[in-house]
């Protein structure tokens, strides 16, 4: 897949590094993952399968996916816009803006939920107004979407900013000076360059959106079969002494994380194909990726 590099590490270094990296991953990620599945299958296949087919669990899966699907486009648009402004232009207050984008990371999820209660709750600023019009935001779907937007807000932007900085602006400048419109430049130059970063960002934001517990827990109201997302449902099952159900639901979320594997493989495969086609079309020109 990768071009063999002229300047590469010696095999000894390579093996050591691989061992350290993989060891770290196994120790910190692999074992917990195995533990989740061990717990989920503690009573065998049948209870696991049964737990997953419970009506409330299925509903929670649907709601979790729905929230993520609504949240992602907003944060993709924001992430690309913010990264474009920050990475390609110099302006006053840039570090401040970057820091403000980071801020939701540092806000404890519990506090994040609280923020929106302060605004939309019955005793919040907008509470009386919302109640007089009988609009439900908190303890209903909109509140959960807003809380998830807040929690996943920085991911895509933060993924793209260092990448676009490292790439500089020469390529886009060249495209524009060659007469490309803004849209063409973005579509043909910027997007292909940032696709990896964007993909990582989307995967992370998606994982986080689906796995978020603290903030959503504050604004959801926990109504069974109605406003319970999968992470909330996991907690409820656990508190109901239903270990198998809880870890079965958790294993679904863990599997969602592994969806990355499929997404990345597909993208890689397509890119390889594109490159091939490009190579065939332009035999003399050296291709980018």
């Amino acid at each position, binding site marked *: 897949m990768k071009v063999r590099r002229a300047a590469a590490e010696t095999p000894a270094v390579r093996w050591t590094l691989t061992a350290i990296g993989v060891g770290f991953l196994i120790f910190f990620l692999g074992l917990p993952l195995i533990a989740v599945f061990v717990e989920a299958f503690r009573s065998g296949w049948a209870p696991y399968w049964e737990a997953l087919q419970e009506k409330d669990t*299925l*509903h929670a*899966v*649907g*709601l979790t*996916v*729905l929230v993520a*699907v609504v949240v992602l486009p907003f944060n993709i648009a924001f992430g690309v816009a913010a990264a474009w402004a920050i990475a390609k232009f110099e302006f006053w207050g840039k570090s401040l803006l970057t820091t403000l984008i980071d801020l939701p990371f540092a806000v404890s999820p519990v506090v994040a939920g609280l923020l929106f*209660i302060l605004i*939309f*709750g*019955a*005793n*919040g600023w907008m*509470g009386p107004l919302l*109640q007089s019009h009988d609009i*439900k935001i*908190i*303890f209903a779907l909109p509140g959960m979407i807003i809380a998830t937007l807040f929690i996943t807000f920085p991911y895509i932007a933060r993924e793209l900013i260092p990448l676009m900085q490292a790439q500089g602006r020469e390529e886009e400048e060249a495209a524009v000076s060659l007469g490309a419109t803004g849209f063409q430049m973005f579509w043909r130059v910027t997007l292909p360059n940032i696709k990896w970063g964007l993909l990582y960002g*989307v995967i992370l934001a998606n994982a986080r959106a689906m796995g978020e517990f603290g903030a959503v*827990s*504050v604004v959801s*109201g*926990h*109504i*069974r*079969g*109605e406003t319970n997302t999968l992470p909330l449902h996991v907690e*409820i099952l*656990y*508190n*109901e*002494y*239903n*270990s198998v159900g809880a870890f079965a639901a958790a294993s679904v979320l863990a599997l969602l994380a592994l969806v990355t594997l499929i*997404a990345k493989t597909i993208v890689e495969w397509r890119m390889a194909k594109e490159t091939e086609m490009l190579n065939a079309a332009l035999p003399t020109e050296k291709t980018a990726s």
Partner: protein
Amino acid sequence: MNRSLLSAVLLAAGLSLAPVAQAQTSLLNVSYDVARDVFKDYNPKFVAAYKARTGETVEVKQSHAGSTKQVRAVADGLEADVVTMNQATDIMFLAEKGLVAADWTKKFPNDAAPYTSTMVFIVRKGNPKAIKDWNDLIKSGTSIIIPHPKNTGNGRWTYLAAWGNALKQPGGNDKSAAAYLSAFFKNTPLFAPGGRDATTTFIQRGQGDVLVTFESEAELIAREFGRGGFEVVYPPQSILTELPVAIVDKVVDKRGTRKQAQAYLEYLWSKDGQTNAAENYLRPRDAEVFKKYADRFPAVKTFTVDETFGGWAKATEAHFKDGGSFDQIYQVK
């Protein structure tokens, strides 16, 4: 990314959300964490009985999470028709906010607590540390697992049980009770974040020698983890944990569900309701039902929060507020 995948996902999400949009009278019962089993059994019984009596079909929805967190949600606009909690402070907060009638304890019998429980000890099989009474807990080398005394309802009950017992010893006073708890906390290696996690820590992770928890929890623990590994020890004296219920007036008036909500809570005191509580190892108020299930509920001398601490408001103020007795124990001199 992939359009057909996206639409499939949306479709799946839409399908699974669809059944929610049914229009019929529904009640939302906002409750604490481990009450699910009680109401999972109770709700169908009530729905059937109510239908038989009035011909009306009611749907009951459940919401469960930490008691105080749930009550805060109700105060912030979660539209609960009824609240069924594990301590009176939580409903008092709603009364303060004007959502529940100020005299809510008078609206139903028994101070609006249809069933009770008590705090018991769970020890390892054979009771190797010979734990029989509260004083055995503070012996050196005994390790106690409890949930966080300030952050969980379960933990607060434990704290008050320990304090009340010390108070009721011959010559007991606030000072001796504080000394007892100080010794008690020397033996707690950790505070679990919730009642359920305290159980897991004790049973599955094998931490500690004794777990202090609700009597009703012991049965749930036996169902999940098997009966072989532990024993339940009843201390001679413990606290009577009253589990109160109330109608959220503001919500039922707005939604026009007062009649149904009233019937829902009243039914808790019926023979059916009381039997259901007993089946779930909660001590029923009804003497007849209690007698029938007497073998489940060994005799314990109990004291209440009202008589020992002058009510929950005072107990909270003295022990759990910032700077209260719990905080004083954890002050560096």
